[in-house]
Structure formats: C-alpha cells, structure tokens
C-alpha cells in the first residue's frame, strides 16, 4: 500500500466510521477446502459461476496500488486489509461483501448453492476470525430460494453475519413470490436483505437492459443504477414489505441521486394506479423511506458540491444513507473523500450512526 497525504483537521472529524461495502477476493485453492467432494472437480476445471459478457476496465477493477508489501492484493489478505485500510482510515466496522456473487448466478442451482456456501464458510473461517472489525454478508443464490433459505438457517445466527446478500442481476425481479423463502428466512434471523451490482448481464440474467446488451464497461457500469431501481420497484410494488412486515432492505453500490425523482414518479403513479396494488396503503415513498437503506458509493460528483447537497435535501438522507467505500475497487470513495461530501449536520449519521442503528452494531468503540 502506498503513502497517503496527511489530511486536514476537518477531514479527521469523522470517527467511528462504519463502512457498509468492502470487497475480498478468494483463492481458488482455498475455496476447494470448503466444497463437497462432488463439486471439486468442476471447480478445479475452472467452471466457477456466471461470467459477464466480456466488459473490460482498462485500469482493472481492483486498484493497482491496493497491494501488501509482498505485492499481494489486499483483498486476498485479511491482515493487509485491516492494516492498510481499516487502520489507515480509522474504520471501526467494515462489512465484507465477498466475491461469491457471480457463483450465486451459476445456471446450475445445486452447484451455485454449493459454491456460495463454500465462499461463506471461507469468509467466516479466514476473515471474521482475523479481525473483530469485519462483519459478513451471507451470499445466497437466487437460483433456488429454498436452498438459499437453508443457507440462511445454517449460518444466519453467526454473530459476525449482518445481512443476506443477493446479486443485483437476477432471472426474475426480486419482488416475485419465487423468492419468498429467502425473505422468510431472513426475517426469522432478523437479517436485512441486500443487493449488490456486478452480475447484471452475467450468465442466466439475460440482457443488461430492455434495450439489449450494453457494449462496453462504461455503458454497463453507468447503467447499474437502473437495476437497483428496477429491483426496488419490484419489491415495493409486489408487496414484499407487507408480506414480511419486519423485512429490511439495502441497496448497495447503486449511487444515490436517482432516488428522489424515482420516489416522486412512484408516488404520482400510485395515486392513479393504487387499485392495481391495493396492499400499498400509503405512498410508496413512505414505505421506501421506512424500510430501505442505501450505501453511498459511488457518490455522484456534479461540478458543484452544492447541487449534490441540495439533492440530499430531497429525501431523508441522514436516515437512509450509509457510507460505503467499495474498497479496493476502481470506483471507490475513501472515507475522507465521502466525509467531505456530506454537510457537517448529517456527516456523522451517514458515516457511522445510520448503519450502526440499522445493523444493530452498537456504539463506536472508545
């Protein structure tokens, strides 16, 4: 890891940072240790999930400077990540969203379930045990919700597990009843359900939009917020939050600025179309604000910071936004950079308190 410039005093005002999205990479030979014998040959042959249709980032997805002194990627190393990221930025708690998301969308639902279980077990064994600041999202495969529910029941009460994580791409939007077993299991363990991008267009998820396939990484990545809003619209419209009154939902890495106009459109249409969804007994925006939280990254960067802050006044941002760095990925927001983006009046909530309340993490240490 490389040096960083010293920060000004104002930048250091944020303490007890909770980072709701950091990333790991797993060594193939370590995943084998957690796979049943019947799946090991397939894994070792290189069949490991659902690849994207060839999008390419010239700088790489992982920051090239995020390496240990030995030249190893920090995201392979719990110790390296703790020292070079958590220590360096004063992160108090970091939620690991691991690299099993593309395995979760393997078209073979049995193999998908086996792979995500191996990734989950590997992270409990090697990451949660390495540093008390790490927390884990339990990745489950949406290809077979009954198996996914079994995985939640198997590991959902582990003290380091804080939520259930689904890939952002899916074969059917997440509001459908097909997925109810996942939500039933999540609420049984009082775990929120989150989605995270990266698999949109991968494997069986189909085209990257109704317009067809994106051509390039730039087009695909810029459009990721469309999947986030599509899943949100589905979950709210289908009445998932009425069927599961204690279910809480998290939209990871979708950015923020699309949310206020989406809620305006949603409420306006609901006023005319409510009879098609009679379970929606109040404006959809109220349901969203109560039950849904968003991670902050990638922060939009309009030319004027005042425009970003004005956007945050259009919804209860201090109650809904939870800081995320996406470290060590190319589109990440470091804690100091994100902290400066938020007005002082909401900074502490976004950088720490909202996530502590939502994930029931307890107060900051020290």
């Amino acid at each position: 890891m490389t040096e960083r410039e010293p920060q000004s005093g104002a930048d250091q005002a944020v303490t007890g940072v909770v980072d709701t999205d950091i990333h790991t990479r797993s060594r193939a030979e370590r995943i084998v240790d957690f796979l049943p014998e019947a799946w090991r040959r397939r894994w070792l042959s290189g069949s490991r999930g659902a690849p994207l249709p060839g999008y390419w980032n010239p700088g790489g997805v992982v920051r090239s400077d995020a390496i240990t002194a030995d030249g190893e990627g920090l995201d392979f190393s719990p110790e390296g990540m703790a020292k070079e990221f958590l220590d360096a930025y004063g992160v108090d708690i970091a939620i690991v969203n691991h690299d099993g998301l593309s395995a979760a969308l393997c078209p073979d639902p049995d193999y998908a379930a086996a792979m995500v279980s191996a990734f989950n077990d590997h992270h409990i064994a090697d990451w949660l045990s390495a540093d008390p600041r790490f927390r884990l999202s339990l990745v489950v495969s949406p290809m077979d919700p009954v198996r996914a529910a079994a995985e939640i029941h198997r590991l959902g009460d582990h003290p380091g597990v804080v939520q259930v994580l689904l890939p952002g791409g899916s074969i059917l939007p997440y509001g459908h009843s097909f997925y109810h077993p996942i939500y039933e299991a999540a609420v049984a363990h009082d775990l929120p359900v989150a989605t995270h991008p990266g698999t949109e267009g991968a494997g069986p998820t189909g085209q990257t939009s109704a317009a067809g396939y994106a051509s390039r990484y730039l087009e695909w990545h810029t459009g990721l917020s469309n999947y986030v809003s599509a899943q949100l619209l589905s979950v709210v419209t289908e009445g998932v939050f009425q069927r599961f009154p204690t279910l809480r939902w998290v939209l990871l890495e979708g950015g923020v600025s699309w949310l206020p106009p989406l809620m305006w459109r949603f409420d306006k249409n609901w006023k005319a179309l409510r009879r098609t969804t009679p379970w929606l007994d109040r404006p959809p925006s109220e349901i969203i604000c109560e039950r849904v939280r968003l991670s902050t990254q990638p922060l939009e960067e309009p030319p004027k910071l005042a425009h970003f802050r004005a956007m945050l006044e259009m919804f209860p941002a201090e109650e809904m936004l939870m800081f995320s760095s996406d470290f060590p990925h190319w589109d990440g927001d470091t804690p100091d950079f994100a902290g400066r983006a938020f007005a002082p009046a909401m900074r502490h909530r976004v950088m720490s308190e909202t996530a502590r309340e939502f994930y029931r993490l307890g107060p900051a240490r020290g």
Partner: protein
Amino acid sequence: MSSRTQSRETVVGHVDELPPGTRKIVDVDGTSVGVFNVNGTLVAYRNRCPHERAPVCLGGVDGTTLVSAPGEHVWGRAGEILMCPWHGWEFDLLTGQCLTDRRRLHRYDVVVEDTEIRVLH
C-alpha cells in the same frame, strides 16, 4: 507551467537515473513528487491526484486511445499518459491536464544542471 514564485531548488537525482520511460518518486521539502522522463522530457508533479488525493504518480504510464470517430480506435501518445491507480483518471504527463476533467496535476519546473536533476519549488 506553475505560476507560483519559485525560489528554491531541490536536487532529486542524477540524469542517468532517469532514462526515457522511467520515473522516480522523491521528497521535495516534505512533499511527495513524481519526476518523469517522458520520451526525453523531464517533468515533475505533486504525487497527489486532484480528485481524491490518491498517490497519482504511482499509476501506470502508457499511451492511450486518441480522440477519433465512432467505431475507430487509434492508439497514440506513447509514454505520455499517466493513469491514476485509484479511479483511472488519465493525465497528460506533458502538461498535467486531466483528459476527462478540468482539474490538473500540480506541476513543478525541472532543470538539469551539471547532470543533476533539480525540482524548482
């Protein structure tokens, strides 16, 4: 070109240390600075990205695709483009200007005297 008053010089190395295509990260009065030999031209920039303060001078140096018509991909500017290791922003090493944003790298003048490379600051 920096418009600041430049009153001091710091020797940062010998010309033999920095053949074309290489770089050196040096300390100039407590500030990390990247000195680059861009195809024979010595340039120096503060090692701090104007975006999120990344150590930009540790990024990859290469050419890039030139502005072109839709569907054409023309490689050029060999050795003149620095890519920030954090977010991939490209900077013109000859001017410090970012190719995709108004911001630019903080530039220092460089002179060679008696085979010593000196950064003015």
